[in-house]
């Protein structure tokens, strides 16, 4: 009987510790790497660094070249946000809403002329990415690739 009681006690204590650790983990910082990419049909603008990206999307899009316009790094804590400016009087605001179940919840808002035109809330896996795209720019479209690590 004593053995069972000890086991139960251990199990409860450890479970509490783990749950606490998991909660604490959600307060860790989230490192975001945001790439602003111009995808277009104009040849000769391919960025070799974006080769993987291009390959990934080759079945979905028909762009012939992907050009890295800018790269921003954001570091977010729980519940704060970062904004990056995008071409065409646009900006993107990313807000962290916490981590749970191995995914970080991000609210991504796109503004143009200071007006919100798009928003989404996504739950992103660790060390993985999501791409928001569409806005027209120059002769192509902007793709904003968000890579999160936490």
């Amino acid at each position: 009987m004593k053995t069972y009681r000890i086991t139960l006690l251990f199990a409860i204590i450890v479970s509490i510790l783990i749950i606490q650790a998991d909660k604490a983990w959600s307060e860790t910082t989230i490192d975001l790497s945001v790439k602003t990419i111009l995808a277009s049909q104009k040849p000769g603008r391919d960025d070799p660094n974006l080769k993987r990206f291009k390959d990934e999307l080759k079945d979905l899009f028909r762009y012939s070249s992907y050009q890295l316009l800018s790269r921003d790094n954001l570091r977010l804590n729980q519940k704060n946000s970062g904004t990056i400016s995008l071409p065409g009087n646009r900006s993107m605001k990313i807000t962290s809403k916490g981590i749970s179940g191995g995914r970080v919840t991000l609210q991504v808002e796109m503004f143009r002329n200071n007006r919100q035109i798009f928003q989404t809330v996504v739950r992103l896996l660790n060390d993985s990415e999501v791409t928001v795209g569409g806005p027209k720019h120059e002769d192509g479209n902007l793709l904003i690739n968000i890579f999160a690590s936490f």
Partner: protein
Amino acid sequence: MVSNTSNTYGWTEDELIERLKKGQEEAYRILVREYHSRLYSLACGITMDREESQDILQEVFLKVCSNIKGFKGKSSLFTWLRRITVNESLNWRRRAKRRFRWKHQPLDTEGTEGGVELERQESGPEAMYQKKELEKSLNNGLNLLSEEARTIFALRELEGLSYDEIAAQLNLSKGTVSSRLFYARQRLKEFLEKDQGGDS
């Protein structure tokens, strides 16, 4: 109230207690040899299980090891041992230790060691057979009594404790002790009579 009679090895009880407190191995050897048998019978009387009783006895002596330093000598050493034995025997079932045991070795009139039942001795004399039969039914009768009744019976029959002493040990009233004893004897008598059938 400590007895000063010498035990087998020439030590008085006081001397023995002192050496036990010091942790002297020889003293513990003597303690075990001296009291094991009597306490084992008591444990058997309560639990009706040989293997359990063996385990209980081990636990009893371990308890002596750990608690001897606090033994104040208000009762005799044996009285203390007996009390521990009774408590351990009554509490044993409540602990899950039995769960981990493979074989249950209930008391029976044959088979002495291990889990293997020895072959019944072939056609002994009539008397021997009858005796064994008698013991078997006594065994069955005892098994049907409650653990409390068995404890009271054992303390009375094996240890010769008075009703008052039994009542004090088990936290019962004297009247309860008396009636339980009486009832136990009635039950055992009925059981023996029933099993013997038309025998003399």
